[in-house]
C-alpha cells in the first residue's frame, strides 16, 4: 500500500497558496484584534486617568484634615457608557477614607500623570483599575492619599466583540479573495505548461516539427530536451524513409527487366504450364512493384506530413489532371470514367498539393482496381457550405463489408480482394495524407454494391 499521492502542479500550487493565504489571514486577524483591544484599553485608561485627575482636583485641605468632594458627574459619565459599573476607594495614610471599603488595594500605584493600571476580578466582574498615589500636606502633616478608580469592561467587551465580528468577516473576505487570486495565479502559472502540452498534443501523428521556443524560462530546458528528442527521432525516421525510397527506386529497374523478359517469354510460350508459371512470375513482379511504389508513397506522405509545403492551386485543375492520368488505365480495363463538377477552375485552395494529389490518386487507383469490368466509375466534385467534396463511386460484383476499424490499417486488405494485386497500404496512405491536410475521408458501401468514397477538404 505504498500509494504515492500524485497531486497535479496546479493543485500543489493551489494548496500552498491557500495555506499561505490562511496563515496571512489568521495573523492579520490576530494582529488587528490585538491592536484594536489595545486601542480600546488605551481609551479606557485615558478615561480612568481623567477621572482620577478630576478626583485629585477635588481634594481640599481644611485645617489639618483632608476632604474630598467626589466628582459624581464624572463617575456617572463613566458608568453611563455601556452601563458599566464604577468602583472607587480613597485611603489616607493607609486608613480607608471613602468609597468601597471591600475593594482590594493593588500592590502598585502610579502618580498623577501616569496612574498604574491593572486588571482584577471583583464580585464576578472583570475590572480595569487605575491607581495613583498623591501626597498632600495639611498643617505640616503629611497625607499619603491612595486613589483607586475601577471600571467594569462591558462597553469595551461589546466594542471588542463587534469589532472582532467585523474583523472575522473582513478576514474571511480577504481569505476568499486570496484563494481566488491563488486560483488565478495557479492557472496563470500552469497556463504555459498547458499551452506547451497542447502544442505537442494537437500534433498529427507524423508532425515532427520542433515545439515552439516561445515558452517561459523554466520550461525552456524541457522544450529543448523535447526538441532534441524530436530531432533525433526525425533523423532516424528520415534515414529510414530515405532507405525505403532508395530501395524502392533501385528495385524498379531490375523489376522492369524481369517483367519485360517474362512477358516476352510469355508471348513466345506455347505450353499452358509455362504460361501459367510466367504469369505467376509477372504477377509477383507486379506485387513487389506495387509494394515498393506504395512504400515510396508512404515515405513521401510521412515526410510531407512533417514538413508540409502549402501552395495555392486550382483544386479542379488538380483533380482533372489526375482523372485524365487514369483514363488510359481505365480504358485498359474496359472501365468508363465520368467526371462532373460545379466548381469553377478559378477556385483555388491553399494546402500541400502533393499530399492532396496522393490521397486522390490512391482513392482513384483503388476504385479502378476493384471496379467491376465494363462499369462506370463516377467521379463528382462539388463545393458545399464548408468543404470541397470529392465523391468516387465504383461498382463491385458483390461489394464487401467495409470494416471501418480495419479499413485504414497498414497492410490490411479487405474482403474479396481475391487475386487483385495490392499491398494493403493504399487507404492507410490516403488516411495519412488526408489527416495531414486537415481533410476527412469516408468510405462506405451503398445500394447496388456500389462503394462510395467521399473526401471532404475544408476551404
Amino acid at each position, binding site marked *: 500500500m505504498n500509494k504515492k499521492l500524485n497531486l497535479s502542479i496546479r493543485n500543489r500550487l493551489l494548496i500552498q497558496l491557500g495555506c499561505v493565504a490562511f496563515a496571512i489571514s489568521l495573523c492579520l486577524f490576530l494582529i488587528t484584534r490585538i491592536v484594536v483591544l489595545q486601542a480600546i484599553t488605551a481609551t479606557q485608561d485615558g478615561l480612568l486617568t481623567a477621572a482620577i485627575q478630576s478626583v485629585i482636583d477635588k481634594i481640599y485641605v481644611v485645617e489639618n484634615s483632608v476632604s474630598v468632594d467626589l466628582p459624581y458627574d464624572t463617575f456617572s459619565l463613566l458608568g453611563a457608557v455601556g452601563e458599566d459599573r464604577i468602583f472607587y476607594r480613597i485611603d489616607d495614610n493607609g486608613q480607608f477614607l471613602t468609597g468601597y471599603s471591600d475593594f482590594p488595594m493593588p500592590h502598585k500605584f502610579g502618580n498623577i500623570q501616569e496612574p498604574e493600571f491593572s486588571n482584577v476580578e471583583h464580585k464576578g466582574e472583570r475590572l480595569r483599575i487605575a491607581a495613583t498615589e498623591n501626597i498632600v500636606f495639611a498643617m505640616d502633616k503629611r497625607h499619603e492619599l491612595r486613589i483607586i478608580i475601577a471600571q467594569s469592561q462591558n462597553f469595551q467587551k461589546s466594542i471588542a466583540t463587534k469589532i472582532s465580528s467585523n474583523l472575522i468577516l473582513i478576514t474571511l473576505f480577504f481569505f476568499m479573495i486570496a484563494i481566488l487570486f491563488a486560483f488565478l495565479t495557479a492557472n496563470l502559472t500552469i497556463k504555459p505548461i498547458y499551452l506547451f502540452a497542447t502544442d505537442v498534443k494537437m500534433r498529427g501523428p507524423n508532425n515532427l516539427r520542433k515545439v515552439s521556443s516561445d515558452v517561459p524560462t523554466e520550461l525552456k530546458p524541457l522544450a529543448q530536451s523535447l526538441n532534441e528528442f524530436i530531432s533525433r527521432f526525425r533523423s532516424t525516421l528520415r534515414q529510414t524513409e530515405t532507405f525505403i525510397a532508395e530501395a524502392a527506386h533501385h528495385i524498379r529497374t531490375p523489376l522492369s527487366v524481369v517483367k519485360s523478359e517474362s512477358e*516476352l517469354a510469355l508471348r513466345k510460350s506455347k505450353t499452358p504450364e509455362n504460361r501459367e508459371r510466367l504469369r505467376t512470375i509477372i504477377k509477383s513482379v507486379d506485387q513487389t512493384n506495387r509494394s515498393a511504389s506504395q512504400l515510396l508513397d508512404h515515405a513521401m506522405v510521412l515526410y510531407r506530413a512533417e514538413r508540409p509545403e502549402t501552395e495555392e492551386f486550382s483544386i479542379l485543375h488538380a483533380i482533372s489532371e489526375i482523372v485524365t492520368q487514369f483514363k488510359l488505365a481505365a480504358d485498359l480495363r474496359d472501365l468508363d470514367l465520368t467526371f462532373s463538377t460545379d466548381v469553377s477552375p478559378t477556385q483555388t485552395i491553399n494546402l500541400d498539393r502533393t499530399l492532396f*494529389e496522393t490521397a486522390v490518386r490512391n482513392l482513384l487507383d483503388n476504385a479502378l482496381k476493384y471496379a467491376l469490368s465494363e462499369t462506370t466509375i463516377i467521379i463528382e466534385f462539388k463545393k458545399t457550405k464548408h468543404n470541397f467534396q470529392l465523391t468516387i463511386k465504383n461498382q463491385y460484383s458483390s461489394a464487401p463489408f467495409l470494416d471501418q476499424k480495419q479499413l485504414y490499417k497498414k497492410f490490411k486488405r479487405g474482403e474479396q480482394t481475391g487475386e487483385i494485386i495490392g499491398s494493403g497500404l493504399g487507404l492507410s496512405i490516403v488516411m495519412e495524407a488526408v489527416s495531414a491536410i486537415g481533410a476527412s475521408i469516408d468510405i462506405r458501401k451503398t445500394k447496388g454494391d456500389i462503394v462510395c468514397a467521399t473526401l471532404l477538404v475544408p476551404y
Partner: protein
Amino acid sequence: MKVLIIEDSQELAKSLRLFLELENNHVECAYDLATASHYISVTHFDIILLDIMLPDGDGRDFLRSVRARNKNIPVIVMTARSEISDRVDLLDIGADDYIIKPFEFVELEARCRAVLRRHSGQDQQALSYGNIILYPLSAMIEFAQEKTPLRNRELRLLEIFCNSPEILFSKEQLTDRLFLISDEVTENAIEVYVGRLRKKLVGSNVTIETVRGIGYRLVKDE
C-alpha cells in the same frame, strides 16, 4: 513504325526492342544521350521511349534540347518515379506521356498508340478491311454507312485483326495483347469479346473466323 529506345539498362532495352520488333516495328537502342543525339540527328523516328537517369546526363535535359530544336517527335518518358509532381514536370517540359517502370507491354503499346493518335489526324488512323472502316480514335466501326461504337477491348481486338487481317491469332496471343497480366481473365474471355464483335459485324462483309483448336482470324465473306 520507327522507335528509338533511350535506356541505360541494356537488358531492359533489349526486351523492349524484342517486344516492339514482334509487333513489326523498327527499333534502335541508345544506351546514352550522346548516341541518342546522334541517332535523332541522322534519322527520323516515329516515337522515342526515353529513360530519365542516363550515364551521361538527365533525360529531361535531353527532352528539353529536343523540343528546343523544334523536333516534334512524340516522346514517352519511362520513369521509376511515381509522384504526380514528377509527371507534371515531365509533361511541362514537353513529354507526350510517361510510363512508370515496371510496365506491361500492353500498357506501353496502348500509350504509344494514344500518343501517335494525338500526333496524327483522325483520318490517317482509319483502318479498313473489306467494307468496314475502323476509327480507333473515336472507337467506332463503320460499314453500310452506319457507325457503331465499340468498347475499349472490342476496339483493341478489332484493331489487332485489322492490322493483320487473315492472320491467325491464338487465344493466348489475343489474351496477352488484350488483357493486363494483373487482370482477372476468365477461361472464355476471348470468346466473349469475339462473340460481341461478331454481333457488331453482322451486315458487313467481314467476319471473325474460328479455326478450331488454333485460334481466330479476320476474313472477308466469300
